[in-house]
């Protein structure tokens, strides 16, 4: 393994930052959720890289669970979005006026 683990950390850091920025600057809920997925993927990269370098499988197990959770989250999230859309025909978070953001 001639790629130092720190490369992976930097990579995941970049992806995580991009995801974070995405959550903050986008207004479309779908894109915000995609950005969250970016963040989760950054996490996964971290876990797998560390797991591989430390020779410790529990990191990979963690990723497995994170994936499961991500799937569940998406299912619920999209259900919410659909329900929301039925009410307001918009998924732009700035359009939610009933509650102050």
């Amino acid at each position: 393994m001639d790629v130092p683990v720190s490369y992976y950390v930097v990579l995941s850091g970049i992806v995580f930052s991009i995801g974070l920025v995405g959550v903050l600057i986008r207004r479309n809920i779908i894109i915000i959720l995609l950005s969250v997925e970016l963040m989760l993927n950054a996490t996964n990269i971290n876990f797998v890289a560390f797991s591989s370098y430390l020779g410790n499988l529990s990191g990979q197990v963690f990723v497995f669970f994170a994936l499961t959770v991500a799937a569940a989250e998406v299912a619920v999230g999209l259900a919410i979005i659909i329900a929301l859309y039925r009410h307001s025909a918009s998924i732009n978070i700035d359009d939610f006026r009933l509650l102050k953001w």
Partner: protein
Amino acid sequence: MTLPLADLVTILPELLIVGMACLILVLDPITPSGKKDFLAWMSLGILGVCALITMTDFGETVVAFGGLVVVDSYAAFWKMLLYLVSGLTILLSMSYLKEEKIELAEYYAFVLLALAGMMVMVSGTDLLTIYLGIELMSITLYIMAGLKRSEARSIEASAKYFVLGAFSSGILLYGISLLFGVTGSTRLSEISAVVNGPASEDPLMLLALMLIIVGFGFKVAAVPFHMWTPDVYEGAPTSVTAFMAVASKAASFAAFLRVLLEAFGGVKPNWNVLILALCVVTIALGNLVAIVQTNVKRMLAYSSIAHAGYALIGIVVAGWVGIDPDVSSRGISSLMLYLAIYSFMTLGAFAMVAILRKGGLEGENIEDFTGLAKRHKGGAFLMLVFMISLAGIPPTAGFIGKFYILMAAVNAELAWLAIFALIFAAISAFYYLRIVMVMYMRDPSPEQEKNTRLTLSPQVSVVLACAIAGVVLLGVFPGPLVSLTDLSVLSISPVR
């Protein structure tokens, strides 16, 4: 491969609760629609059984599943609290759901599943279990927040809760991943060993710590990670709001404290100032913004933010360096006490908001409370007591909570923090009293006068009775609860 029977016995309460949740889901379709209450009663029964089982957990420490979960007094304390809160929530919901026309039996299953998540959180000793517990709880709550599907507000609340919840989970998870890289484990004890030793100055570890704090900051709604709270509390069905405000907060605090102390107990200087800053900002902002609210649920949301700030004092004390271990554990026990008391009063306040809904009023604007004392003396009086208690004025339990947590602060030589907290407690009295003011000092409009009917179902009466009993009795005889918190305090890893 054999089933780890001993381990399964350890998590018997969790199993029972999950089993009950599944049973509800199965029984729901074959239960006639008028008989859904039966399912709620069954859930309550299970909670009672679990409480009996958990009661035996006090005083012993059983590690199960290879150190992924532990059943100790600390966990037992929180579990008892959570059973109570969940039970009261179920009782409160039984008539509220009918009123709101969202009478779904799944609701009770959700309460139980969220409870299971919280139980996993409080007894998890591995970041993996804690994370999964958080997610189980959060996902359930996202759904519950949106259960009043016919109302756009509820769905919006759900969406906001979801977006920020997922975001915060992502941050938390990233922190965990970095920590895993530094320490090679997600087990709290193993993390602690590395963090105390070779990695105590590791910048990556600090980054991970920061991210974990931010992640939990969202869950306990500490400023500046609170922005979801008011919207979600306002939009969600009131019974769900009560559940969220009380149970999820308690569980998050429990897990937060355990992570900080058991994993990062050796590097207290690295996080106590951060928590202190959070605590100060949370108390200040929560109370100040609450003043301008016109919606009771929003106001209570900000009040709950502020209360999270007070509770954070407990963590600050627990993490303060240069004090006796004894003093640190005072911080923990006072936090536990505070949250237990907070549960009663907040639940009571939300229960009142929920039953006001019944008079045909929305019951959410402060104006809707106008002249309540004339329309419904008992209700007004209960609300009065809850408000006084939230403001921390004796002889209610709210005072006892504040007293102990501030005692801990003073004991840790953080008297200035106690003064600060009290100043804001005085400010908070202003908005709590406003509710008292409109209830007692304004006359109801003729229209409101007509709506004197506050049909209290027996179940809600029980909830209110429990809440008021908690608020008053704990205010007058806090002794047993205090001893219980002292007994179930988390054993702290040695301070370096």
